């Protein structure tokens, strides 16, 4: 059906032209030499949905953004080729994502004639989400051995507060 094809194409087109999205800063800003000349630029790690992107720069020298601490929702702008930058603060933070698997209902013909109809079954699956915070004193000793992780180091945790990695 060309109509359905058109609908899908239009939806994809609409998706492709979305220039802005919401994200969440999950690390502190660090100055990194960004180009071959070594120009220093503040960048942070940003979470977009279930993905984490490192080295995201701030659109301009926005002091409010540079002082933002991990967990702050931010507005991101994406270029046509997929590069993003932080353009401002946002009012939307990410929550958890709940995934389910659905056994679809089916009507199947039986050998004796007639139909057997199965009902749909919803199987609850994973809950996923991220958060970042400074490691606790107890974790300082366990994550990489005592003395290796500096005080106030940031780490990434999942929805059930399980340590994932240091940022």
């Amino acid at each position, binding site marked *: *059906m060309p109509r*359905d*094809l058109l*609908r*899908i194409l239009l939806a994809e087109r609409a998706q492709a032209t979305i220039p802005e999205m*919401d994200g969440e800063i999950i690390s502190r800003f660090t100055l990194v030499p960004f180009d071959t000349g070594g120009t220093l630029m503040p960048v942070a790690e940003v979470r977009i*949905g279930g993905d984490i992107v490192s080295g995201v720069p701030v659109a301009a020298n926005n002091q409010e953004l540079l*002082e*933002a*601490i991990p*967990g*702050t*929702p931010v507005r991101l702008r994406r270029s046509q080729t997929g590069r993003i930058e932080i353009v401002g603060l*946002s*009012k*939307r*933070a*990410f*929550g*958890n*994502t*709940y*995934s*389910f*698997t*659905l*056994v*679809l*209902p*089916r*009507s199947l*013909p*039986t050998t004796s*004639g*007639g*139909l057997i*109809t199965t*009902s*749909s079954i*919803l*199987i609850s699956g994973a809950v996923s989400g991220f958060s970042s915070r400074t490691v606790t004193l107890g974790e300082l000793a366990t994550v990489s051995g005592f003395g290796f992780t500096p005080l106030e180091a940031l780490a990434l945790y999942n929805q059930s507060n399980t340590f994932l990695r240091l940022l």
Partner: protein
Amino acid sequence: MRKMTDTQTSILEGDVRQYRYRLEIWDVLTSGAPTIAQIVNGSAAAASATFSAFYLDATPFVGQPLRLDEPGDKRAAHLTFTLLDISGQFNPDGGTATATFVQNNQVVRLVEGDEALASASWIATFTGHIRGQVGFTTDREGIRFQASVAAYGRRATPRYLKQGFTSQTYGKQVDLGRIAIDVARQQMGLGDDELNRAPIALGRGTQFAANSIVDLTPLEAIDKILEVVGQASDFDGDGRLRYYNRDVTRGADKQYDTLQLIGSVTIPQAEIEAFNSVKLIGLDKQIALVEQPEQALARAMIPVGFWRPTHEIEVLWSEDRSLRARNATLAVLTSVNQSLLFELGTERFTVIDDFSGRISVDITSYVNGLLTMIGVTLAAKALIPDVLNVFAAITIPVGRIIEALLMAEIYLALATVSSGQYEVRGTALLPVYQELSVIVTADGVLDYLLNQKEIRNDWFNELTEMTTVAQLELIFEDAQAKPREFSVHNDLELEIGDIVYLPIGGGLRIWIESFSKEIARGMVPMMRVAGYKCP
């Protein structure tokens, strides 16, 4: 399902029919003309003397065929026909009075019925507006004048479809149905009679203190609201706003017990990229609090002294009590104890709530004791007499000496004043909306074959309702991969979103997505109905 009376059903769905139709064209543009609301609610009936000048029964002029398409999927119905006559009265440039009836935006109605049924009981199956310019051909060889007209259903009304609006702001626990009805009334200008098929309550309230719709078109706004309860909007044949259900697992609305009225049933070859996963993104009804860098929340200066045992001051993090903060601690910039003579007191800080705290300075008991002593000794000194030294013949002013000592006490008490300067620091909390996502994927989908549909709708605020709707949407998308078509002898009960049951192969339930028919004189039209096989 269109509601019909028993008489209507027995005649319009019977085996013997004398099919008739009426094509009404209404002038709504000339002054004094009826409004579309009056046409829809029937107060501007064809027989009405007031409006007879604005009504044209175009049935005699209709050239064959007259075609009605209802494409479904939130698209407007489409009616095309030609008008033939020998005088050329529909010529847009001809200057006749009749030509005004075929101007852009005039109202067209298709009313279907039967010779055996009173014409008042006939059923309107299309109400819409003429779109654009009427085509007109003057054919010298054929000696005929033909006007081609296209009309679109009310869904295609530009204001409903294209004009963004800003709604009023609704508070907490306002039924979403009321918001949808308000949009229909205020932005689409629909009246009670045009809304009597749209439920006022959807049983689902708003969750936030402020809810408004900004820069959406009226139909977009209504459909976003209806999405929360698995419904979609449409206009019925009468031109009234109605909702239909996208749940394909529900029971059939109409059951054909025999195949007597059914012409054919087709399983079409179809190239469909069906979605096998649905992702819903809504806003959690619980606002999340995001921590901000530590900052100074409040400053205070407290002068202390002997005049009050405890000095207290209440501090707010912001003047309007709007700033919320945690981990508030007191930083003493200047202590009251940095005074000239004595330590004056203890400084305390209590957090009252997330928005304010209290700084207290308790004056030491020494200062209190001092004050009591002053009182007692001042009273006592007056009673002490002077002593007379008889040997030196002088009077020793004992009372004055003691009084001087007491004056030193008063001096001390007056010196017991100080002031402290304080700052409260803490972590400010910023309230933000928290997105809530639900993904429902069909069982057994291979990773690389995943095709996910994403629905963003801020009216979704709870996990359970989102799970229900995501499940419903996925079953709907799955059904879309199984299109079915059938033809039926003009069944006026059927509407988009209905489920019909056909007694084929153990029973086949079809969710109707669209239909079309060509209407010619003297025969019952065959309706071609397209839809999806329900599970």
